[in-house]
């Protein structure tokens, strides 16, 4: 394994639930509950999960856009949670984020030039305006936009082009690491493929490291070298891409994979139908968080939480009865 760029240990984010006149804390939403993983330089780690799994909060905690309640985040050797706000601000140029919604995440009143150039204004205030413009033009070309559209506003672009603007903005400070939070979920199929290819080209050419967060398993499989599956704030399974898709060990991963509709009519498949709904992260079930929906749950699962254990070659599974 090559050098580790990001290491997350025992990450927790509990959002307090307040009630009543005095807004007393009556409980906590355990959005992320003890998550550990690491990403090697140049690698893409796919983070998969359904609503409420904590995948988005995990991505934001890693960048300290949301302050974690507990845990350690090591980025390029630095302990991020030990940094003061000024040092953290300086660190941010190396770690950026691309959001899902290319409509909501770009200020509609800013021209593309300002949108893409803004991170440079913040992180390289000494840069001259003309230099910045040259840099914006080259970023636009890099992501497949025409620099002569620099004076336009976001609404003049299609969804796919807007996502390219978001990517160019994230790349402005030449980061080493990108959190990609559902970057293609809002896009049409034909455009989605273009953006996925672009992200792969950028990674290869710029040596970027990605945390790719998505709910679409086919997209994650396509882009990731390793995959982490989350459910209710916890990691259920982690393995290399080939391993997790060929030999899933956790019943949740298996049902997730079997639930994806495949574009092959008449394809033989045995769907593992999960019962019920995802429980509220404010009141996770005791024992294994997946036990209320698990097709193979037994008494032990209701009382004892399974640990995430390595079954060999970095294939980690949190299940009493894997396989």
């Amino acid at each position, binding site marked *: 394994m090559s050098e580790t760029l990001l290491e997350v240990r025992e990450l927790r984010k509990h959002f307090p639930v307040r009630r009543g006149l005095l807004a007393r804390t009556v409980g906590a939403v355990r959005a992320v509950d003890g998550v550990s993983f690491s990403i090697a330089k140049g690698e893409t780690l796919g983070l998969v999960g359904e609503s409420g799994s904590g995948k988005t909060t995990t991505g934001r905690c890693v960048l300290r856009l949301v302050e974690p309640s507990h845990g350690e985040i090591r980025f390029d050797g630095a302990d991020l949670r030990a940094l003061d706000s000024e040092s953290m601000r300086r660190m941010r140029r190396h770690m950026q984020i691309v959001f899902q919604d290319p409509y909501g995440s770009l200020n509609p009143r800013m021209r593309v030039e300002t949108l893409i150039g803004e991170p440079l204004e913040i992180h390289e205030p000494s840069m001259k305006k003309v230099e910045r413009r040259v840099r914006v033009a080259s970023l636009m070309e890099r992501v497949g936009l025409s620099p002569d559209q620099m004076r336009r506003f976001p609404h003049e672009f299609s969804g796919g082009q807007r996502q390219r603007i978001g990517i160019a903005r994230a790349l402005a400070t030449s980061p080493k690491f990108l959190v990609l939070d559902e970057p293609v979920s809002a896009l049409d199929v034909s455009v989605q493929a273009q953006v996925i290819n672009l992200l792969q080209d950028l990674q290869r050419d710029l040596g970027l490291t990605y945390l790719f967060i998505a709910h679409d398993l086919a997209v994650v499989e*396509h882009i990731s070298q390793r995959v982490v599956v989350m459910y209710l704030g916890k990691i259920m399974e982690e393995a290399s891409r080939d391993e997790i898709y060929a030999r899933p060990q956790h019943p949740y991963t298996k049902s997730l994979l079997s639930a994806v509709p495949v574009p092959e009519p008449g394809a033989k498949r045995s769907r593992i139908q999960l019962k019920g709904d995802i429980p509220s992260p404010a009141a996770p079930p005791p024992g294994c968080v997946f036990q209320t929906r698990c097709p193979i749950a037994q008494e032990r699962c209701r009382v004892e939480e399974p640990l995430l254990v390595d079954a060999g070659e970095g294939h980690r599974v949190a299940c009493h009865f894997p396989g």
Partner: protein
Amino acid sequence: MTDSVSTTRGARAGEDATAPVLELRGLRVGFDTDDGRITAVDGVSFAIGNGEALALVGESGCGKSVTALSILRLLPRSARISGGEVRYRGRDLLALDEHAMRAYRGDRIAMIFQEPMTSLNPVMTIGDQVGEPLRIHRDASRAEARKRAVELLDIVQIPDARSRVDDYPHQLSGGMRQRAMIAMALACSPELLIADEPTTALDVTIQAGILELLASLRKSLGLSILLITHNLGIVAEFCERAVVMYTGRIVEDARVDTLFREPKHPYTRGLLASLPRLSSGARRLSTIPGVVPDLRKLPTGCTFNPRCPELMPICPSAVPALMPAGGGSRARCFLYGDATETERGA
């Protein structure tokens, strides 16, 4: 399956029981925008047989949802149906007055939408909403409607229907809300269910349950389903036939197995090739160059021509007709003949 309130299967006045459940002929829908009139649906024709599931597929702006809303005449004010027919069992719904139309909407033809939270009334109980179509269309009493609502919630497999009937939408999960909406759609035993992206807002494990439910209802109730979706995986699993739309026109109409095995239109081929697939091994996705054009600035001739890998000299100058393309498929492409269509707006 029990049925406490009488249903009205069979032909009504003006209908022909031997005609298809639904047949669209040359449907055209325009929108008034600040930049003038645009044609969102341009000459769409297809038919759905008894118990058939037809997919209407395409990317944003292709006109699939506008087509669906036109069938029930639920279009926004800025839209106008400027031509064509929508025939239910042979009867043209577009020729009916609003009062007569109400006997079809929510009764013979029901519709479910993508977002159950915004489609359900937040201040009415689930039971009142599921029973409402019966109160309106069947003159059911409160008690009858409630009794039937419990049965319907049972049919859509909402656990503990007897107590859930008094819940409000916010007390249900997304998947359960979509089930409640399906129950409401089934209240009057419709022959046709229009499902507009019914699982797009749901997680994949919940989606699987809803699709399974729809498939079993189709079988047990003999429902015909018009499924509007952008998800080709769902098309492959759920439907027998698919109509692919691009910029308001049908570009391909085929049996689903043929569509996936032998897509005829270059757009359909491009779409299928650009899908990331589980365990495909391919490390680079094939793409369709460019973007879907703006309906206000459509390319001349075949609207797909600027993106098409099979571009021929004729393509920018004439609109191809929907032509037989082999294997029972029809495609709007000059690869399959030289028949042309009159230009848009003509």
